[in-house]
């Protein structure tokens, strides 16, 4: 009666809870001379991985469960990040290089006289938080609404999501957009008055990210376990049949897409204060593709597979780009090819499956290679 899924849930939430306690202790309470000390560099790196895990969760929801291969989710991630970045820029205030209390440095540099209207309100943290959710949601709603209503599916949808993120990247590169052009935002000072260079602030950010990931995970789990979640899986397997049963397929796809975009936006908002920079390269098409690889490696349609994949692949990336920087892209490509060919269910598929008896216990079942992505 404990399918892989339930064990996966327990392990994942357990590890998150443990790291939310252990990581701060190892960083703050253990002296730097001890072998057990966790450097602030590692702490930030872990926080970054958790943000990526949340992004992977968003992609698994839409791709693994909904069968919609979005190759543009980094766009929602970056938009969430930009919204947070705008708050952090306003928070700098007169401490900028030019000392202008209202205008961020790049605007002074570009000789702008007043703040563009869309920057109003970003001096308030809550406005930024609202935008972190709202901007990705509205974009996903409009874009998804048009795409799903026109019944754009499969590879065509993947291509237009790539086009979306690419178009946004080009737009954000322009200085006239008012988002700092190719330099984006950086040199952040503090968040809610707490110095971003302080270890303690970073610990809090890490714990916040771990909590956000756990909540996001539980929300995704609740969604896929609901009847709506079963409708979404049914759409993935036989869309027209679902339509004949009287479900409005477009609206199911749309709401899951919007929710997934919001998760990605939150991940981006948590990422920016930890890495200290956001620029248009976050919209790069390759970023969205990488997320799909994380999910494929971990095992799609399981949620915890996405988290596992994001953590492992990003750890590998950190290692390889340090040790053999020129090898990384080849390794990533090879990884994707190998997983697709030999491990269609990802690493999670390697876990032994116990006897299933519950009515809902079927997902997490290794699928035959023949039922791969549509």
């Amino acid at each position: 009666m404990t399918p892989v899924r339930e064990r996966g849930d327990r392990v994942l939430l357990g590890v998150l809870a443990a790291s939310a306690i252990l990581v701060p202790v190892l960083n703050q309470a253990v002296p730097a001379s001890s072998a057990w000390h966790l450097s602030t560099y590692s702490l930030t790196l872990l926080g970054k991985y958790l943000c990526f895990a949340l992004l992977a969760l968003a992609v698994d929801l839409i791709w693994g469960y909904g069968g919609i291969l979005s190759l543009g989710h980094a766009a929602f991630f970056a938009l969430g990040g930009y919204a947070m970045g705008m708050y952090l820029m306003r928070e700098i205030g007169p401490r900028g290089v030019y000392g202008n209390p209202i205008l961020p440095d790049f605007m002074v540099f570009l000789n702008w006289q007043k703040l563009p209207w869309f920057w109003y309100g970003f001096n308030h943290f809550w406005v930024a938080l609202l935008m972190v959710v709202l901007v990705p949601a509205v974009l996903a709603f409009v874009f998804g609404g048009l795409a799903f209503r026109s019944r754009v599916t499969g590879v065509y949808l993947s291509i237009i999501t790539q086009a979306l993120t690419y178009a946004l990247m080009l737009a954000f590169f322009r200085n006239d957009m008012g988002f700092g052009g190719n330099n984006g935002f950086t040199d952040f000072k503090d968040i809610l008055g707490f110095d971003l260079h302080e270890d303690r602030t970073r610990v809090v950010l890490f714990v916040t990210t771990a909590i956000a990931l756990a909540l996001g995970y539980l929300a995704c789990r609740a969604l896929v376990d609901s009847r709506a979640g079963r409708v979404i899986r049914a759409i993935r397997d036989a869309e027209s049949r679902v339509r004949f049963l009287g479900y409005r397929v477009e609206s199911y796809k749309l709401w899951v897409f919007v929710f997934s975009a919001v998760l990605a936006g939150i991940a981006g908002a948590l990422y920016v204060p930890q890495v200290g920079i956001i620029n248009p390269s976050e919209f790069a098409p390759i970023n969205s593709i990488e997320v799909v690889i994380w999910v494929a490696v971990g095992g799609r349609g399981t949620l915890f597979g996405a988290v596992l994949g994001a953590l492992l692949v990003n750890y590998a990336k950190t290692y390889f780009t340090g040790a053999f920087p020129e090898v990384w892209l080849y390794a990533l490509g090879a990884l994707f090819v190998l997983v697709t060919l030999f491990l269609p269910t990802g690493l999670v598929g390697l876990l032994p499956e116990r006897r299933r008896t519950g009515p809902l216990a079927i997902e997490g079942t290794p699928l035959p290679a023949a039922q791969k992505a549509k």
Partner: protein
Amino acid sequence: MIDPRLENPWIEGPKGPILSLRDLTVTFDGFKALDALTLEVERGELRCIIGPNGAGKTTMMDVVTGKTRPQHGSAIFRTDIDLLALSEPEIAQAGIGRKFQKPTVFERLTVFENLELSLWGEKSFRASLFARLKKSQRDHIDNILSVIGLSERRYASAGSLSHGQKQWLEIGMLLMQEPDLLLIDEPVAGMTQQETERTAELLISLKAEHSLVVVEHDMDFVRSIAKRVTVLHEGRVLADGEAEQVQQDPRVIDVYLGA
């Protein structure tokens, strides 16, 4: 003509045909798939439709379920519902269920979940996000499971069922919606003899409460389930009547049975 109400005197409700098609014409690139087709199905009737390939059987089903729009004609359901004005989901909601030739069940959901998704009721995203199975709904699913003979396999994934079982599951999914009219496309194609017999029993047991339109090639099967048979040819009705009688019709022998 046999009035089904004489056969099934317990059928209540408004009189008049459950489905009435008039002068339906569908043209694909100059080819007339349906040519002024006129057809009526009575309440509680089990009607079989036969005809050679390209006779317009599937196109007729497509029109009734809203997948194809005719250039001309009318399609009235339950004497007061204009099917040509409704979308596919609206037609399903109105009470017409369709079973395709190829079984399409949700392979990676369980048999039980397949039936659950087919429950009658509110189908919006929000409603299904918070939906919980009521006792009555669970009983309804159990009941359908026993009608289609899959009670034992309720927690199996639909993908693991045999071909015949998938067909029954799909019929069960239609029944969950408590449709007034069932359209069934070649239910016994590819079935074993035993499965065919079991399917015949199932369909006969359904006609008391539902009206059924069955498209089928297998003449023996048709004779075993239907009193009344309609033969389509080149988009029109070629012959119509009792199975035995239709089988003797020289025109039918000419275009279909003799071939």
